[in-house]
């Protein structure tokens, strides 16, 4: 009986802690401010060649063991998934920045969580700039 009571208490404690926010809050949830996210999720490159940049993004994702999910030249997006005992999904967008640059932005999730740690994005841009033969420039 005591065990049952303990279990009931534990369940209700968990319900109180976890249950006050509906899970739909996840739709608009972010861990960090948009400014903070962009600071490490995007970089500028000195090129205006959308097609070549997107093709290089795709090649880089393949180098990182991703399988492409979708790609769209007109919209400038590529989405891909990596399975390696875990799942990482990434979306990369490419769009013009001023007259002489392209802005590349990546956002990724690991299992059921957004990746909001700068390190994986730094790794991604390090791989991308090698393949681009161009420097990935920090944007404010």
């Amino acid at each position, binding site marked *: 009986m005591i065990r049952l*009571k*303990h279990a009931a*208490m*534990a369940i209700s*404690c*968990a319900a109180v*802690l*976890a249950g006050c926010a509906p899970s739909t809050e996840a739709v608009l949830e972010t861990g960090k401010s948009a400014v903070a996210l962009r600071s490490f999720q995007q970089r500028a490159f000195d090129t205006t060649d959308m*097609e070549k940049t*997107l*093709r290089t993004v*795709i*090649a880089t994702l*393949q*180098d*990182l*063991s*991703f*399988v*492409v*999910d*979708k*790609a*769209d*030249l007109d919209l400038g997006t*590529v989405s*891909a*998934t*990596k*399975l*390696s*005992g*875990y*799942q*990482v999904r*990434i979306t990369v967008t490419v769009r013009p920045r001023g007259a002489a640059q392209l802005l590349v932005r990546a956002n*990724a999730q*690991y*299992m*059921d*969580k957004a*990746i909001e*740690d700068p*390190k*994986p*994005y730094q*790794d*991604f841009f*390090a*791989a991308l700039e*090698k393949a681009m033969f161009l420097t990935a420039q920090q944007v404010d």
Partner: protein
Amino acid sequence: MRRCQPACAGIVALGLTVLGGCATIPQDALQLAPDSLERRQMQTRRIDGIDEKRLLAAAAGVLQDLGFNIDESETKLGVIVASKDRSAFTASQVVAAIALGMLGAPTSIDKTQKIRVSLVTRPALAADGTPRPDSHLIRITIQRVVRNTGDQITRIESIEEPKIYQEFFERLSKSIFLEVQSI
């Protein structure tokens, strides 16, 4: 009731750890692996003498020969994405499951797998960085998710067996030959 509180807190803490704590990304997830060049070579071939659109058409034909369905394509970027669902039963697992079942320990075995392929072409470059005419690199990457008889995921992995890539590219050469012959 008071005696219950530490236990309750412990269980809640454990629950939160399980829910939130284990989801840290492996540090090398977006890093170029030391063997990435080797893998690129295994997954890539240079194909000469055919334009990109017809190369993609020939490749789509090979995917169909292998029973894949095309999920997405963007020919302007040289991308085809395809997948197929297949059985994941293996004789050794079935035998082991029957043996364990007879010993009174019923066990789940791998049942289905979803195999996904992305196939990407891009212009091959000459030494001076300009595209070589009618010369392309084609690279495929393959992955799969395996589910067991209890519908739980048992494997999520990239497929990296050289034999599979070799065979795919052999079939592709034949398909390209037919594609070139058909004009």
